[in-house]
Structures are given as structure tokens and as C-alpha cells.
């Protein structure tokens, strides 16, 4: 089961894929009655933010990546109930026991912080974590570019 020599691929789709997913979700949102009322700002911001992450995860390949899978799973859970993501508790008990034979204690501390930031990072071994991180970063910056384009386009001239 030596998968150590598999080439690591962190390619992401083109920007239009992200744009398309985001636009579709936004247009769905706008069809909701409560969405357009000027008072409910906080709700609206939260929904847009959530839609940004979900559409990004879908554009990036849905269930093909660990981080996008975790993100989508989390979003689905949130739709049923407002629950605080419990990942943190489990992860802390996991890692503390394993400090003994790690290659470098400093690296592991940083890795732990990274695991906090990348969806699904809690269960990953460090090389997988870095691979997922690279992909996640690329997708995040694509998503940011898409949103920036939108904002620039919608801003009053």
C-alpha cells in the first residue's frame, strides 16, 4: 500500500467554474422573499458567506477533495440545526497523545494551527494536510477574485 510515490495534483478549475457556481447560488438566494428586504442585513450577509463557501466547494470538485467534502458536510449539518462544529474537541485529544515520535515538535504545532483553518484538517496526516491546504488556498483565492469582480461590477460608477 505504498502510495508515497503518487504524483500530487493540486490543479483547480478555471475561474469561470467558480463564477458560475457562485452566480447560480446567488440567483437562487435572490428568489427567496426575505432575501431582498433591506432590514435583514445580518441574515443576508451570513447567507451570502455560506453560499460563497458552498459554491466554492462544489466548483472545486465537490466530494473529490477532503476539504470540500468536510465543508459540504458541515453546511448540510447547519441546515438542519445551528450546531457548533465539534471538530476541535476531538482533534485535541487525538493529537496530544501522538507527540512522542513526531519528526519535529515545532512543525507539529504549526500543523495543528493549520488543521484548525482547513476544513476537515483534523483527521489528516501532515503531507495530506499540506496537499489539501495547497488546493484549498488556490480555490479560496479564486473565490475571492470572483467576489471581487462582482463587487467591482456592482459598485456605482
Amino acid at each position: 500500500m505504498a502510495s508515497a510515490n503518487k504524483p500530487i495534483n493540486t490543479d483547480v478549475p478555471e475561474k469561470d467554474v467558480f463564477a458560475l457556481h457562485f452566480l447560480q447560488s446567488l440567483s437562487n438566494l435572490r428568489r427567496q422573499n426575505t432575501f431582498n428586504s433591506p432590514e435583514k442585513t445580518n441574515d443576508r450577509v451570513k447567507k451570502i458567506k455560506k453560499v460563497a463557501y458552498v459554491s466554492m466547494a462544489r466548483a472545486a470538485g465537490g466530494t473529490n477533495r477532503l476539504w470540500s467534502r468536510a465543508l459540504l458536510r458541515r453546511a448540510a449539518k447547519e441546515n438542519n440545526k445551528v450546531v457548533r462544529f465539534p471538530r476541535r474537541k476531538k482533534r485535541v485529544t487525538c493529537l496530544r497523545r501522538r507527540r512522542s515520535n513526531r519528526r519535529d515538535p515545532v512543525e507539529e504545532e504549526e500543523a495543528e494551527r493549520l488543521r484548525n483553518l482547513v476544513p476537515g484538517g483534523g483527521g489528516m496526516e501532515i503531507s495530506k494536510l499540506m496537499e489539501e491546504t495547497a488546493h484549498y488556498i488556490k480555490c479560496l483565492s479564486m473565490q475571492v477574485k470572483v467576489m471581487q469582480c462582482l463587487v467591482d461590477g456592482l459598485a456605482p460608477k
Partner: protein
Amino acid sequence: MSSRKSSRSRQSGSSRISDDQISDLVTKLQHLIPELRRRRSDKMSASKVLQETCNYIRNLHREVDDLSDRLSGFLASTDDNSAEAAIIRSLLDY
């Protein structure tokens, strides 16, 4: 979700992932982060790269927050046509 598999068990000499691959990944990450790419230094310590990666991700999250906020302001209007047109126009022109 119990993922405490044996992949996390102690692996001293014969680790599944080679040190080269790790170092490779560190370099890859280094190139992805604009902050570090500018410095052009050949090799940074893994922990520094990881640290900057965390900062970069946090920044990106913050940008998403900020842009969501601004988008929310723009999308609150009931003027459908102009907003849709502007959206499509802006994305097609990039």
C-alpha cells in the same frame, strides 16, 4: 467521525511519505503564498511556511467576510435588471 487510524501511529524510519515529498510540498506551498513568493529565498523552514500559510488563509477568510458584506449591500436592491446585468457584465469582462 473517528479518524484515529493507524496512519497516525508512530512511524520513525520507514514513514509512508518520504522526507523529499514533504519538502516538495513545503516548496509548493511557499510558491502559493504571495508574501513568500516575493522573497525568492530558496528554502524557508517548514514551520515558517506553515505559519505564513495560516496567516494567508486567515486573510483570505477575512476577505470573503468583507466581500460578502459588500455584496449584501449591493444585492439588497429590488432593482432586478440592473443588478443582474451588472453582475453578468462584470464577470464576462474580466
